[in-house]
């Protein structure tokens, strides 16, 4: 799939974290188009009205203003057009309740944002390999 360059939607409210993902993508030579939404409401709007064709991958933060990641997931899974998109949670929240809620809404993975950029780079490299194997 990554060969076909499907687009990716990043739902993240922190500016530095967005820069972090962009930098890690470019260092790992990930060339897929990246859309960014600052919260759940904005992400739903982009999925319903802006991005066409729909992204196959969503990277989702949990703690965000307006509509948080879990609320966004609930809305998304209830929407016939959006419910089958793969979601990867990327968050600082190590709360068991967030993990349980996310897996109950069938995310493909729950990744803790590491402190160091080097570690983040290697997590993104692993994700890239995984995405390359996936048929989407």
């Amino acid at each position, binding site marked *: 799939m990554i060969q076909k360059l499907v687009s990716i939607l990043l739902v993240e409210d922190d500016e*530095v974290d967005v820069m972090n993902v962009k*930098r890690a993508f470019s260092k790992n030579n990930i060339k897929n188009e990246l859309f960014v939404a600052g919260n759940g409401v904005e992400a739903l709007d982009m999925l319903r009205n802006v991005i066409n064709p729909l992204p196959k991958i969503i990277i989702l933060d949990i703690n965000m203003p307006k509509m948080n990641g879990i609320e966004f997931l609930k809305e998304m899974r209830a929407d016939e057009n959006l419910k089958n998109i793969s979601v990867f949670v990327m*968050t600082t929240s190590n*709360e068991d309740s967030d993990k349980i809620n996310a897996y109950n809404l069938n995310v493909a993975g729950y990744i803790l*944002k590491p*402190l160091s*950029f080097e570690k983040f780079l290697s997590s993104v490299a692993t994700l890239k390999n995984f995405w390359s194997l996936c048929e989407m």
Partner: protein
Amino acid sequence: MEEIERNYKKELEVLKQEYEDFVYIVSHDIKTPMRAISNIATWIEDDLDPSVGGDIISNFNLLKNRVGRLESMMNGLLELSRVNRVELEFYEINIPKIISESIETLEDKENVDFLVINNLSNENVDTLGKKLTRVLNHLITNAVRFNNKEKKEVVIELNETAEAYEIKISDDGPGVPEAVKDKIFSIFYTVNSKDVVDSTGAGLAISSKILQVVGGSIKYETRDTGGSIFTFNWPKTITLKI
């Protein structure tokens, strides 16, 4: 009387909620800018001209190391505050097995001789598995981390009575000076400066809080030949003391 009791209960609920919110803020809202500091430092370092002096590089390393320490301390505080949470944590574990798993994950295990003396007749126990694993991890890590010998020795002795498991972990490290013996179970206390051994000083505080919650106990003794002995009692039937 009932009125007063109701009010106290209500007040307690409010305080508990405030405390939960506080912990959540520490775990997410403060971690975000902290991670930003660490990440931006790496970007700047990355973008620097290779000709900049070694001073700048070593200061960047210091900066990142201290942010790392801040994160460990924050995680320590969080773990300590979560000791009271026991939902979903009762399951069956095999005590010798979690000990060997804990040894497996140690970084410096090549230079340590581990001796496990297993006198258990009931190795499997249905208990707060995650918490017992945490206590064992902290104690085994400490036995190795603070030991400055080239070749280290750690003895783990497993005994049981009708009511409890008694687990004894001793090492041939420097031990704890008599004068500070009572302080080692306090959060963030370290015997040496944190620059000597990079540690947070949270492990023993967390372990002793866990043992308090499950109704067990932990004590420290100095070994005759130098070194430390930590002994803890883990009740077979847990009555939570929260």
